[in-house]
């Protein structure tokens, strides 16, 4: 599903990720942990093509990220959905309009897409808010809208960046339950968090720790974040300059 080899990335002179390698199989539930500034968000952004690749090799859902052209990014993003801490939903549009967006961009027939949206809203207990503008929702509801939008097209992989950051403990646990339900149906999850309690709430998940090169079950060979320029890695790959291409 995801295979990363010797990934390094820097913003200007500062290394955000250095020599990171790991693999994630289909159906895995992976927590990406580490302190603030460890490079969790950078790694997630690289995995869905929001940042231009610099060094190393990676394959995500069969797409070679290092050699990926910008004009083909939409194909990757139709397989990889993202959930952000700040939701990234359109506040002036209704819940329904936000959730149907990924299906509209795929050109799915309206009847079929509406059926899928209704199912996703039902799964996330959002049916009653279907026609409510997102600007009027509470934080937890917005997060559920963002998740509904992520799951509705049935992506192979969902990347979530601190999805519980704005939620209280109860809502965070409920959110993890939703993730586990979708994971049980085969969707792969990579969830970035620095919340240890959340990690412990999902016992079947594996952890990928970004800082110090923690190895888990032999499948994760993780590099380090936050380096000086002098410690530049000697790995090969394409080069860039921290360019944002979202």
């Amino acid at each position, binding site marked *: 599903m995801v295979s990363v080899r010797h990934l390094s990335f820097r913003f200007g002179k500062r290394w955000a990720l250095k020599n990171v390698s790991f693999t994630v199989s289909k159906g895995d539930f992976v927590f990406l942990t580490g302190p603030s500034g460890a490079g969790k968000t950078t790694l997630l952004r690289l995995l869905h093509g*929001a940042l231009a690749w610099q060094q190393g090799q990676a394959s995500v859902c069969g797409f070679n990220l290092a050699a990926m052209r910008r004009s083909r*990014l939409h194909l990757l993003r139709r397989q990889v*959905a993202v959930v952000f801490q700040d939701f990234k939903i359109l506040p002036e549009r209704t819940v329904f309009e936000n959730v149907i967006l990924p299906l509209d*961009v795929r050109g799915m027939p309206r009847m079929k897409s509406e059926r899928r949206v209704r199912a996703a809203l039902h799964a996330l207990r959002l049916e009653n808010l279907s026609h409510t503008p997102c600007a009027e929702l509470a934080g937890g509801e917005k997060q559920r809208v963002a998740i509904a939008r992520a799951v509705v097209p049935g992506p192979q992989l969902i990347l979530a960046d601190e999805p519980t950051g704005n939620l209280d403990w109860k809502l965070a646990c409920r959110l993890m339950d939703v993730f586990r339900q979708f994971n049980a149906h085969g969707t792969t999850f990579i969830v970035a968090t620095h919340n240890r309690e959340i990690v412990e709430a999902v016992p079947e998940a594996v952890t990928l720790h970004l800082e110090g090169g923690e190895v888990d079950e032999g499948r994760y060979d993780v590099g380090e974040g936050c380096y000086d320029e002098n410690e530049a890695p000697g790995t090969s790959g394409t080069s860039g300059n921290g360019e944002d291409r*979202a």
Partner: protein
Amino acid sequence: MSVFIRLVFQGLRDLTRHPWPQFLTLAALTLTAFLGGLAALFLRNLDAELLKHQGKAQFQIYWKQDADPELVKKQWQWLKELPNAAEVTTFNPDQALDVLKESLGKDVDFTWLRGKSPLPYTALAYFRLPEGGEAWTRAVFDKLKGMDGVQSVHFNPMRLDMAQSFVSLSSRIIWPLTAFLTLLVALVVGNAIKLSLLSRKDEVEILQLVGAKRWYIRLPLLAGGAAQGILGAALGLGFLRIMQESLKDILNIPPLWIKITFLPLPDCLALAGAMTAVAILASWVAVKE
């Protein structure tokens, strides 16, 4: 095709989702169209006015107070039939009084003078200059002055020289000024559209995140930009037309006799087309950035 139409309509509908930025953008476009049109209107009228006098000699002929009206009318007809006569405007004493009243303002009341106007019969005659214009002008001047009942004929050779100089100047400055104006309009419209799209930056980012193709993101924005360009140009030109209608005769008084005319249709279409094209282009560039 249905997706194309849906996205175009979505672009138009989206304009109402961010009413304030869109309203301000529309206001900027309207103002730009108005000011651009105003400058074009000024240049057009200046050009037309200068061209009207190009190579033409102007004579003002005043008859004596006791001139025979029948004879004067025959002389007017004779004037109009003279070789090279381009335009002859005539005034009987009452018409001259009306013009004087118009020049002095609404508060002046000359109704008590109607029928016994002290002003003389007058004519304003323009002649196209043939080769050797100066000698010919002198001959016409003598001929006009020699008419029965004519009190005086006014002709200023300097005016002719000045008109010719202005024409030469006009032909030199009209096109550079038009080009400068076009550039100015393009810059203002382009930046206004780009700024308005900043309010939709998040929307573009989200569409990219959910896997939208570039054209899917751009088409509604281009449709919205085009709509704003067309609407802004239409409103701007509409306001300009209202202004022109209310002020068209403000300079149509002696000694100017300048009637402000509206921009010809091709100029209006060019301005609206240019604004729409720039708006579309700016939308395209803004999304690309």
